[in-house]
């Protein structure tokens, strides 16, 4: 299996948030703004990379029967470590994300990748798979966060200082001045509607790309002698 394929699977073809639909609870709950979404997305990515690496390294040690409890231990340790690190270095962002950082443990995408990928591959592909899956999840989160923030508040990257420090304050873009605020987008129903739209957009784009690919192949088939027209 080549790395490019692993990467495209995690990022696009098997995107956790938009295709496999795992880890929807944090996806829906923390996608109110781009900064929150990015914070949780990056924390999840880091968790996936570390847990995939640890699971892959411990393959020779773990018998079939005890693999699941061992994965739970590994993932819980990694998440708790990340929780402490965020509390120390991104305290304000940590306060905003609150319970959803410790709850990364329960994101089934993580144990899913441990079971279906990292437990069957060597460390390097496992790390790349974790990175790709995490970034794919992060991408879905940020897209949904951007959608909800623009429609709901008329801004983009508000409170960026939580993540980037002082420089972040200048990153906030007000796209719609004096936006009265569109409640539906900010409240939970907006998350569901937004996710539905994103999945539809991804499917549409995917089939359009597939159609274009076929169109490119068709002339080649004609040259081979088959006349279909």
């Amino acid at each position, binding site marked *: 299996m080549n790395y490019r394929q692993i990467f495209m699977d995690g990022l696009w073809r098997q995107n956790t948030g938009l295709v496999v639909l795992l880890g929807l609870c944090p996806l829906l709950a923390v996608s109110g703004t781009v900064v929150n979404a990015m914070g949780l997305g990056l924390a999840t990515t880091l968790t996936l990379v570390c847990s995939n690496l640890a699971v892959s390294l411990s393959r020779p040690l773990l018998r079939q029967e*005890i693999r699941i409890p061992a994965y739970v231990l590994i993932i819980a340790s990694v998440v708790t470590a990340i929780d402490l690190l965020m*509390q120390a270095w991104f305290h304000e962002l940590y306060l905003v994300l609150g319970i959803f950082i410790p709850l990364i443990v329960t994101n089934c995408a993580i144990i899913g990748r441990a079971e279906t990928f990292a437990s069957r591959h060597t460390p390097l592909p496992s790390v790349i798979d974790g990175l790709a899956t995490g970034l794919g999840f992060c991408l879905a989160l940020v897209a949904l966060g951007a959608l909800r923030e623009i429609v709901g508040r008329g801004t983009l990257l508000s409170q960026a200082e939580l993540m980037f420090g002082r420089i972040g304050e200048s990153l906030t873009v007000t796209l719609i001045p004096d936006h009265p605020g569109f409640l539906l987008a900010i409240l939970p129903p907006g998350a569901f509607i937004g996710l539905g739209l994103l999945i539809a957009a991804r499917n549409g784009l995917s089939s359009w790309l597939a159609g274009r690919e076929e169109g490119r192949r068709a002339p080649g088939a004609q040259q081979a002698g088959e006349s279909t027209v």
Partner: protein
Amino acid sequence: MSLARSPLLKSAAALGLVAVVGTTLLAGVHRLTADRIADQERRMVLEQLGQIVPPDRYDNAMHEDYVTFRDEQHFPQGQEVTAYRARKGSQPVAVILRFDAVDGYNGPIRLLVGIEESGRLAGVRVTSHRETPGLGDAIDTARSDWILGFTGRSLANPEPAGWAVERDGGEFDQFTGATITPRAVVEAIQGALEFYELSGRDLFDQPAAAPPEAAS
């Protein structure tokens, strides 16, 4: 099959090893971050307190010079109230009460209510809440200046009848579409002021719950 080679024992040893490695990692990370996390928490408290009583108005370690108490009559549900005391040259300057308003629309509204020694409000801030975004969340300084309107008020300003939202015949604005949230905040602040009028000045004489870091 000898006991030492039984798959059960091997599995148990493997799981034990994973647990030990995980715990060691966590102990290490904890040691690495504990001081910094404590610093961050102290900084957050100081920042919040400093918004109400600016640092140049006091010279004690206010975030460590606090007492806790309960007063069911003025603070709902017999909750524990934390009182931070600001002093300058051992003279009382102000007290900042941390407690929850419980009659909000969605869960407790955590308040910091600063009261000058004279009984005037030094300022009020909401530090956490789960009120509806776009409606009740105007109590947050990030959304509107509403909460700043309490600065300088006291039990006599407005008169007791005025200590309510406009809908209830009082002086304080409610926001469009939300009455419950501001009503809960107004009532909580009034309760705190009444408490202070009765027995608040005694707070300055009580020994601190944690020893002040740098006694002046």
